[in-house]
């Protein structure tokens, strides 16, 4: 499965990358322009210096006077000054030079602009030749002072960038987070709902861009809710359609039995008919219970299991009495469980009814609920062979091959309910004879 991409990261990338590219371009263009301008300004400076020097010397040379520039005034100096030098030749004789050009020795730069590396440093030269008066002026300047200036200009550009770009990115990130909040809020809101909560999401405080999503969700919720209620209606309808004719048959049979009175021969047949109707009714009950459990919400609440079990035992008491069975009931008071009372009752009743059904007349059934929530029903019926114990929880599987009673649904329904409540069912052989159904309730 591919990892889902993050909208937030995408937005952050799409916004911040152009900003960073723009900043970089500004820097490059700034550097190129600065370099060009600095070159021009400094070169002009060199030419200008040469011009001043020419004008200063021309007059003396014309007069044929000796050339004397006099001593330098030590108070008139600048840090950058030692980076600038000059040499003056008249009639190919070096007549004057600044102290920092001593290292140049016999080197002579060609006329015009040129760069040469002398010693450790690169110098920029401007040489002016006046062939008429045979004057050669050379102005030289350390090339690295240009770097220095360009770098200072670039520094002035970069420094605010270093401070502001991260700040801008942080602001963008916060902005995106804020902007995405309605989406995260919506997903949290949907997350928090119980799986059965199908009420629509409030549309009021939702952003315009998210409204289509909430709208679609609400539509979906509505449709699911409708299909749930349709299924419920169907189950209700089926219940009515199946139970009403069964009720008619049963009531009519009972009326006939009362009329037949002591005529034992016809009563036997009617009794048989009534038992068949009861069996059909039980099958309908089980099918409806199954359909309902699968369709319907099972809201869990604190259930008093002891009372629930007592009610179920009371329901089967009459059935056990008619079969002359002994019910030993030992229910610990006030054992509670988080669950759905109706379905728990269906499960308990299914186990109890099975025990009564399969235990022969005069048998014994032990029902026990201990304080730690362990529930067991031990009967003295035929039991279930080990090999079949797994299969009895399958739908429509019947361990009893006599075909007498049972729909084959009771235990699978019970298992389904037990699973929904995290309960463990185990079947064991009851000694010396019969079956023990043991349910372990884990109280969490």
């Amino acid at each position, binding site marked *: 499965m591919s990892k889902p991409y993050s909208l937030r990261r995408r937005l952050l990338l799409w916004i911040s990358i152009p900003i960073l590219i723009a900043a970089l371009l500004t820097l490059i263009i700034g550097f190129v322009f600065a370099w060009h301008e600095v070159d021009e300004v400094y070169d002009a400076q060199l030419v200008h210096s040469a011009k001043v020097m020419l004008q200063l010397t021309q007059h003396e040379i014309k007069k044929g006077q000796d050339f004397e520039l006099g001593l330098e005034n030590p108070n008139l100096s600048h840090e950058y000054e030692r980076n600038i030098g000059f040499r003056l030749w008249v009639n190919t004789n070096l007549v004057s030079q600044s102290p920092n050009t001593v290292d140049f020795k016999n080197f002579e730069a060609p006329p015009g602009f040129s760069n040469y590396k002398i010693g450790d440093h690169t110098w920029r030269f401007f040489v002016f030749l006046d062939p008429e008066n045979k004057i050669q002026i050379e102005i030289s300047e350390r090339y690295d002072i240009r770097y220095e200036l360009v770098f200072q200009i670039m520094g002035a550009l970069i420094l605010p960038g270093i401070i502001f770009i991260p700040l801008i990115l942080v602001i963008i990130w916060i902005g995106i987070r804020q902007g995405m909040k309605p989406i995260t809020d919506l997903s949290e809101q949907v997350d928090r709902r119980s799986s059965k909560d199908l009420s629509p999401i409030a549309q009021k405080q939702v952003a315009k861009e998210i409204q289509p999503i909430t709208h679609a969700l609400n539509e979906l919720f509505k449709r699911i809710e409708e299909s749930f209620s349709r299924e419920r209606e169907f189950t209700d309808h089926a219940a*009515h359609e199946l139970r009403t*004719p069964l*009720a*008619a*048959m049963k*009531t009519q049979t009972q*009326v006939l039995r*009362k009329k037949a009175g002591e005529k034992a021969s016809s009563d036997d047949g009617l009794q048989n008919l009534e038992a068949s109707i009861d069996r059909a009714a039980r099958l309908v009950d089980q099918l409806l219970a199954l359909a309902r459990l699968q369709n319907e919400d099972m809201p869990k609440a604190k259930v008093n299991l002891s009372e629930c079990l007592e009610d179920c035992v009371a329901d089967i008491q009459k059935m056990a009495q008619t079969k002359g069975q002994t019910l030993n009931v030992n229910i610990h008071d006030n054992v509670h469980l988080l669950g759905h009372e*109706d379905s728990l009752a269906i499960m308990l009743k299914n186990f109890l009814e099975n025990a009564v059904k399969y235990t022969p007349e005069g048998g014994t059934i032990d029902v026990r609920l201990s304080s730690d929530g362990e529930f067991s029903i031990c009967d003295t019926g035929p039991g279930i062979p080990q090999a079949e114990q797994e299969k009895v929880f399958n739908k429509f599987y019947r361990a009893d091959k006599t075909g007498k009673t049972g729909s084959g649904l009771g235990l699978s329904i019970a298992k389904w309910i037990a699973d929904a409540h995290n309960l463990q069912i185990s079947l064991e052989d009851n000694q010396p004879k019969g079956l023990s159904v043991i349910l372990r309730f884990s109280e969490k």
Partner: protein
Amino acid sequence: MRLLLVEDDLNLGKATAEGLKESFAVDWVTNAEDAEEALSTTGYDLVVLDINLPGASGLELLESERNAKNQIPVLLLTARDAVRHRIEGLNAGADDYLVKPFDLDELLARCAAITRRSQGQNLPRIEHRDLAYDLTSGHLSKDGETLQLSGKERAIFDCLIRNLDKPVSKEKIMASVYDWGSEDIESNTIEVHIAALRRKIGRETIKTIRGVGYTIPK
């Protein structure tokens, strides 16, 4: 006692009416409109009401009767056993609830219990002098010996003993003994049944109040 059965399924309605006739005078209708009509014209002691009816449902009928301050006891009969349905029915003002298919004896017992409660009589047995009468089964004994009563005799006795020491008019006795289907209604039939009843339980037990009706005095 007179009972109104509201059930739209013809087979079930017929069988149930027949079963209930053991203890009640039964009128049977198949929809809510007819039921409303019957309730407004006849004084019933009990209604056995199916929820799922064509047209207005049993619950709607029950609610409208309760809104009209009709306190008649109602037992709901329904194919729906989900808890929410039971709660719905009881909240709408039903006194009891039975899921189809039901046991006829259970229906009779519940009907007897509801009418008993509605008459403020919680004990299932009435003992009067040397007579002992079981309100549920209709079993009557004198000095511990069971008396064999006909259906009409039992219905008349039931009506009188429930109104112990109060005069009961002949019309009221007729209303609670005969339903719409009864064929043997003649003006003097009540007198005939009372005479037979007197022979069995003792001549002085039932007194005639001339111009009014009959009573069992204390």
